[in-house]
């Protein structure tokens, strides 16, 4: 039976496939799913990533909490490697090109649609109906349940991701979106003592998934969203760090020294108590 079903899967179009309930939607791999770029979040999302065919509601107090950095990986994936367009419908402020470029997003694939509030739904629906679009990001401060359902129906037919940004107080209202999450910025644990430069790399976002297909999440996720993406690609950076750990450092940045001292003091106390001083030192070098 299982074999027959999987054979059936191959013959079905993606549209039909979405209509057939697959039993375990939480960890069902689909080629159209775009990874969010965060392992912890991927594990919590049904389908291990952002799934096309459903509206994802991001409830934020106000724009500017890290929502673009949260989606940056997916947008980069869609625009730069897949060459699909991403449409911003009625964002509250002007998107900054310089920031988007440092995220390695192909900016020529971005379209910024400014729309009056009563036209937003129309523009969003039109964009969702269009094939070949990567993602549609919609900012809608006020929307009624009927319009939301209509948006979800439009998204169901679509190949693109749909993100809807709504204010925090909408969390209490019911919504047709199958995936809803509350995003709140949080301070790093040791914000008062932390080096300021480090703080920029340690900006955190707390994500509470309040509705999803599958069981509810036990406790909110905490993601690290550094303000500045590293300029070098991941694998090169890692190789570079490994080499740096082996080599003797001749030139030291003053900021690095401060960070190093702060860390080493903390680490030395920890290590002394555990009696693992030398291992801790080699780890510090590695960093």
């Amino acid at each position, binding site marked *: 039976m299982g074999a027959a079903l999987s054979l059936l899967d191959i013959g079905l179009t993606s549209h039909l496939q979405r209509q057939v309930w697959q039993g375990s939607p939480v960890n069902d791999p689909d080629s159209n799913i775009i990874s969010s770029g965060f392992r912890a979040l991927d594990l919590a999302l049904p389908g291990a990533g952002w799934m096309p065919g459903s509206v994802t509601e991001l409830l934020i107090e106000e724009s*500017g909490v890290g929502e673009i950095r949260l989606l940056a990986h997916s947008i980069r994936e869609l625009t730069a490697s897949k060459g699909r367009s991403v449409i911003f419908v009625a964002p509250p402020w002007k998107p900054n090109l310089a920031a988007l470029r*440092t995220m*390695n997003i192909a900016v020529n694939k971005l379209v910024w649609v400014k729309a009056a509030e009563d036209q937003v739904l129309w523009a969003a629906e039109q964009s969702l109906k269009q094939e070949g679009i990567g993602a549609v990001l919609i900012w809608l401060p006020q929307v009624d349940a009927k319009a939301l359902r209509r948006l979800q129906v439009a998204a169901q037919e679509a190949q693109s991701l749909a993100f809807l940004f709504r204010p925090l107080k909408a969390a209490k209202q019911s919504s047709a979106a199958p995936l809803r999450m509350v995003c709140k910025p949080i301070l790093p644990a040791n914000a008062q003592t932390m080096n*300021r430069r480090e703080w920029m790399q340690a900006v955190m976002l707390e994500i509470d998934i309040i509705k999803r297909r599958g069981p509810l999440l036990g406790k909110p996720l905490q993601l690290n969203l550094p*303000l500045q993406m590293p*300029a*070098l690609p991941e694998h*090169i950076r890692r*190789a*570079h760090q490994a080499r740096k750990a082996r080599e003797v450092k001749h030139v030291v940045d003053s900021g690095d020294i401060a960070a190093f001292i702060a860390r080493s003091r903390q680490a030395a106390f920890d290590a002394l108590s555990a009696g693992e001083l030398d291992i801790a030192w080699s780890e510090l070098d590695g960093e």
Partner: protein
Amino acid sequence: MPDLVAFRLGVRPGSTRSHAFALAPQLTLLAVDIREEQNALEAVALALLAFTPKVVLAHANTVLLEVGASMRLFGGLRALLSRVTSTVKGCGFTSRMGCAPTAWGAWLLAHARTRRVARRVRIVKETTLVHVLDELPVSLIPSAHSHGNVFEQIGCATLADLRRLPRKGVARRFGQGVLQWLAQAYGQAPDPREAFCAPASFEARLELQARVESAEALLFAARRLVLQLAGWLSAHHAAVSEFSLLLEHELAARHAPKTSTFKVAWAVPTRDADHILWLLREKLNQTTLAAPVIEMKLLADKVSEYAPPPDTLFPMPGSDSESMAQLLERLSARLGAENVVQLVARDDHRPEAAMTVEPYKPASETKSKRGKKSPKTQTARAETEPEVQTESNEPLELPDLAVPQQPRPSWILETPQKLMLRNERPFYRRPLKLISRTERIEAGWWDGNGVQRDYYVAADDRGRMFWLYRERLTGDWFLHGFFG
């Protein structure tokens, strides 16, 4: 030609004036305007050029289409016929259609349909054609009128009867033409036709039946013209990217303008009638008519060669850049072109001048521009970015842009917002704490919009991140962006 009500009362085509009035006293007789009829036929033929290049204006208000080669393209005979019907209807005419392997056969069936004498009017096989044509009344023959009712008098009611008569006798009585015509209708003789030729430039005119005051009603009428335009475009293998609609107004007031012009232009040439209508609708919805319209005229201004869509065996989502362009045109038609934009980078240190917004352009154009621009930015980066120099010898694929050392916010305010100070610290709803080093931007003295600012990243006590700057001259604090 009697309408349905008159037909029910017994009025038939060809009946005399007095006879008709005796049957239906309240009959209104209309004179035939041969020139108008011809114009209307040509308009229909023009619209129908969308389906086949071989359109023939035939005897007695009939348009013949040779659709043998078009059937697969439009998805079979049934789909093609329904599209032809809807096109003719869209032009504002009713049609009776017949379909047969020969031109005269189709003509006969269409006319039989008009006179409600045939049961089957769609024939594909030649063998069935003979059976069906045999049953048709002989009065359908185009030359029958000149012979009066001789055919009936010699006991010859159907075409089968006529074919059974000795050929010599028929030729002597009715002329060689009838035999020739019969052979052509039954597919036994060749039937060469001269195809309708589309005019070199497009200009279509429509006189409205009534004064039109609303834009919505105007659109309905414009549909006829647009359908003709679509047919004309496919006959010329062309696509249009700009047209103008000239409206002739009724002379209501002395100073009211007599005509007005709408120009509709878009980026990617198209020949899709629905898309053109879409754009026109958005344009018309935004305007109010100066006076009631009595006549309209459509002119194709910018016509270019049409590149057929690349047909891949496995269509990929995302490869369809043309329909993407259509979406953006739809959006900009409704929201305004200045509201559907792309971000374009410029070399400037001032954040507000480092990018401009440009109305959306088709992908090919922006790409070529980018290609020209990139070497310049690359050299600029090589000078200003010692950070990305690596110690490795192997070639490294670097991001081809200058990365600022300090982070940049994803949202930027169009006009910076002035911040208050509390306890010597900038305050935006909550007290802010600066967490970055100073980044000084001092530029633009050459164009009069000079800035002297010290930028900082700031955080409030909830973890939200802001981008602030301090005017160097005045010492005022401003909020310039949010880290989204």
